[in-house]
């Protein structure tokens, strides 16, 4: 009797205690609501106002829209494929049409799992809660934020119909690749309107908001398909589709819209463009001002550039024996580490417009833009500036004879500079055209002692090199740090026979009403003597035809071209910068961490082997269908045959080279010592 009485007494106590705790909780809850409600954000009315931000549009060089910034192409619910609506509801919140902002059972379950199951965190956000979070809150994980988000969700439910909420949600969620809202996502990933999405496509898109980067189909197609299976299972479970429909959809591999792949957020060109626009107009104007930016980007050339760099670097991987083992690792670690990088910049020589830009092998692995922000030694790629300076200040010309011999140059406060040739041998007398063609360092060193390094750096700067250059003798051999953009811009001055155009990324900026904020005008600035510039161009043509860049001809590019390879000490950088009369392209390859580019056999990889093939690959495609145009020859230039070893008229049957001479210049002058 007593034990029964004690048990009943205990139960009664627990019951009243529960009632008391429950009552206190309810009161506390209401108090908390009143307290927190003061800090809640105001809700816009109507909810559709959330999509009223103007978009800034970026156009390519042909006037096609590349991408919209802050773009939300809002579509009414009835203009969105039913497949997508069902897929998103089934995946994100299948009780959406039943609850009133919060799915209580799911919340309690999630709370239990989060509290009592270690290492597991369960989310229970309804579509309304997700909308509240996206509209007002940061992504900071805290109970306080979660509670506020819940309250706002209740208000959204109280103020709007389910259709209005769903409409706001699908027009506002982020799908990755710069696509916000279902219509933009549909256009970005499939190049069609959201109304036309079939089940296979709709279910793929519905899986993306969970982790837009992780499931980005452009980057991880297989992963996105796996996620789609989850979506299809949810649709079957919630009765939206049959298992058969799900199987059919799962078997379909939707084709992604590749046409404007560089239009996606995540391109080196757009990064560089954004940086410049923000510097000029500020972030608010760029992202929220609804401006129209007409860029110089040629999507066709950009696509060739991207492919050329990708394939060229893969070829380089093969050459260097860098591959994956069964764990997806190379000998040094993850596959994305310790692989050579590359960069390419293509400039229209006639205007300075940057037509294509690739800043690395993969933007998603590394956003560092090596085309603009990376400064590396140019090696022999810098010699054209030296030769022009020598022509200008010393009165020498491509037919002037000099001697390839050991040189020792006194440097104040340091040990003597004794530059070596690439082949570690000396070849005696030769004309300057041969010296550049064979990239003879000792002759370059002799020239720079005569011109002085200041004159060489001054010329490079006059041609548009913006990176700081050191006034040291070794600048002639390319020891100063420059970017591919510097090199492409400066070499295009040679391509134009002395006319300089500053490289630029956009032609015009307008506001939303078409009023012009900025307009680029192309101004010719004569910085070099056309005849002397032509002499350097002729020497660089020989580099491509018979010198260190001859791999370009071997790879099939036969049009008029000139250029110069560059390989730095210990093969840390391999360059090729070259041009046709209309397009100047600089290519760099190397490791970010200044590691050597060495083949499997241990030999170093030069600019001719590492960068020139990328250049050739790009140019073959870029110049396809373009009329072939030779470099124009200034009126005061004549061509003379010369013996490349004596600098005099060739002996019958002896070796012959052709050099361009300016009026007044003669062959067989005194050798320069």
């Amino acid at each position: 009797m007593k034990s029964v009485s004690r048990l009943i007494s205990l139960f009664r106590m627990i019951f009243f205690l529960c009632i008391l705790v429950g009552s206190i909780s309810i009161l506390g809850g209401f108090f908390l609501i009143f307290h927190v409600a003061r800090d809640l954000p105001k809700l816009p009315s109507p909810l559709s106002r959330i999509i009223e931000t103007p978009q800034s549009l970026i156009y390519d060089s042909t006037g096609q829209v590349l991408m919209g910034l802050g773009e939300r192409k809002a579509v009414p619910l009835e203009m969105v494929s039913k497949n997508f609506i069902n897929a998103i509801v089934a995946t994100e919140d299948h009780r959406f049409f039943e609850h009133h902002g919060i799915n209580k059972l799911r919340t309690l379950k999630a709370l239990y799992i989060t509290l009592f199951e270690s290492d597991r965190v369960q989310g229970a956000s309804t579509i309304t809660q997700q909308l509240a979070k996206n509209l007002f809150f940061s992504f900071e994980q805290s109970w306080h934020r979660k509670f506020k988000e819940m309250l706002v969700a209740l208000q959204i439910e109280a103020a709007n119909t389910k259709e209005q909420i769903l409409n706001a949600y699908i027009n506002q969620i982020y799908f990755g690749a710069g696509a916000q809202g279902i219509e933009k996502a549909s256009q970005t990933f499939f190049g069609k309107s959201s109304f036309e999405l079939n089940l296979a496509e709709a279910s793929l898109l519905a899986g993306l908001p969970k982790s837009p980067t992780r499931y980005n189909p452009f980057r991880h197609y297989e992963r996105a398909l796996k996620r789609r299976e989850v979506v299809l299972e949810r649709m079957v479970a919630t009765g939206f589709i049959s298992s058969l429909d799900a199987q059919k959809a799962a078997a379909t591999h939707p084709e992604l819209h590749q046409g404007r792949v560089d239009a996606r957020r995540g391109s080196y060109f757009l990064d560089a463009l954004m940086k410049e626009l923000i510097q000029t107009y500020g972030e608010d104007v760029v992202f929220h001002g609804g401006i129209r930016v007409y860029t110089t980007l040629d999507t066709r050339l950009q696509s060739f550039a991207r492919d050329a760099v990708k394939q060229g670097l893969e070829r380089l991987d093969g050459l260097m024996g860098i591959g994956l083992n069964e764990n997806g690792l190379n000998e040094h670690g993850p596959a994305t580490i310790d692989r050579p990088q590359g960069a390419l910049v293509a400039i229209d020589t006639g205007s300075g417009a940057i037509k294509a830009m690739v800043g690395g092998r993969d933007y998603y692995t590394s956003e560092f833009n090596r085309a603009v922000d990376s400064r590396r030694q140019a090696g022999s790629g810098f010699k054209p500036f030296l030769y022009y300076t020598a022509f200008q200040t010393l009165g020498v010309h491509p037919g002037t004879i000099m001697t390839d011999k050991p040189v020792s140059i006194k440097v104040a406060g340091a040990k003597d500079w004794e530059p070596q040739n690439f082949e570690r041998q000396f070849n005696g007398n030769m004309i300057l055209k041969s010296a550049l063609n064979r990239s003879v360092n000792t002759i370059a060193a002799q020239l720079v002692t005569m011109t002085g390094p200041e004159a060489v750096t001054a010329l490079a700067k006059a041609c548009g090199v913006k990176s700081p250059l050191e006034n040291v003798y070794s600048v002639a051999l390319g020891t100063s740090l420059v970017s591919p953009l510097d090199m492409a811009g400066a070499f295009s001055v040679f391509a134009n026979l002395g006319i300089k155009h500053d490289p630029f990324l956009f032609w015009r900026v307008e506001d939303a009403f078409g009023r012009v904020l900025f307009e680029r005008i192309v101004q010719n600035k004569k910085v070099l003597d056309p005849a002397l510039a032509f002499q350097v161009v002729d020497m660089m043509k020989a580099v491509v035809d018979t010198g260190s860049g001859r791999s370009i001809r071997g790879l099939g590019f036969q049009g008029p071209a000139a250029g110069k390879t560059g390989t730095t000490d210990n093969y840390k950088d391999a360059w090729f910068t070259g041009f046709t009369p209309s397009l100047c392209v600089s290519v760099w390859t190397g490791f970010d961490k200044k590691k050597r580019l060495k083949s499997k056999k241990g030999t170093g990889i030069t600019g001719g082997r590492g960068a020139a093939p990328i250049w050739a690959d790009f140019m073959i495609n870029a110049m396809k269908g373009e009329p072939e145009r030779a470099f124009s020859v200034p009126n005061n230039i004549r061509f003379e045959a010369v013996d490349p070893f004596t600098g005099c008229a060739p002996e019958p049957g002896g070796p012959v080279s052709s050099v361009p001479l300016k009026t007044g210049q003669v062959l067989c002058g005194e050798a320069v010592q």
Partner: protein
Amino acid sequence: MMQRWYDPFTVGEWAKRTFSFFNIGLLIFTVAFGASEFRFDWCEKLVGTYLLATNDLRSETGALWETGRQTSNAHKSLNRIITQREDSRRSVQNADSFYNIVESLGPGEWVTLEKEHFKRLYLSLSPGIGRQLIEPSHLVWLLNTNLTDRIFCEGMTQGVSLYFIDSRNRVIHQIDLKKNTIGEIQSRNEPVPGRLTDIEAFSGHIYSSEKFFEAVFKLPVEMIPELMVDPELLLKQEGTIQSVGIWNEADGGYIKLGFEFSHRGGNRVLLIQAREWAVWQLSLILKGEIQ
């Protein structure tokens, strides 16, 4: 264990107490309370309605409103740029001299100048002054062929640059108008009070009008117009020429001549441009080196 005074003595008493109306009512109420919330979501609705009623009292915070503020800032910035540009454009449109254009544009500001407007301003200059800006034949080539699409004016620190650009936005010709130069050019049309002897640059090169014109008429006939490129400026002046001075340095192939007019007891100096080589010939005659 001791029996407490309030404990029931029988099981019946226990049951009676346990299943009392109050307890059962409380239990039913509690269960109904919980179940009704799960069934009708009245708690959510209540809270939602409360929050909706107090919506206007709350502040516009959070990502959405921040975006709105950024949009508003962007519009303000853009409007400022556009307004500034419109003001410059209007000033340039209303400019009746090149000096006004120079005055209208600050460094970095730019507007497009209509070709007809440029022609009007150019033709308002006397031929000599106009020629200093650009040779008329060159201007005909630029403006009367379909070469020039627009004229782009850009403000610089010391004046403006006028770019004649083609339809591909390439600069065909550029004229730099420096503020002090253009001011000086414009002021040449108007005489300034004073005497030639007040101006240091004429020192040692001032001649009486009789001597000056005597020398002028000794020049070959075809050379005289080069000496007085803008004779209409002189003809427009009131009063009589007392003396003429020759500036002590040339500028761009021209030398200034100063004509001192006397009118109603006052003296004024008018500067005009003369071709350097014609003045050089005249100087030789004035110095008696050529008869």
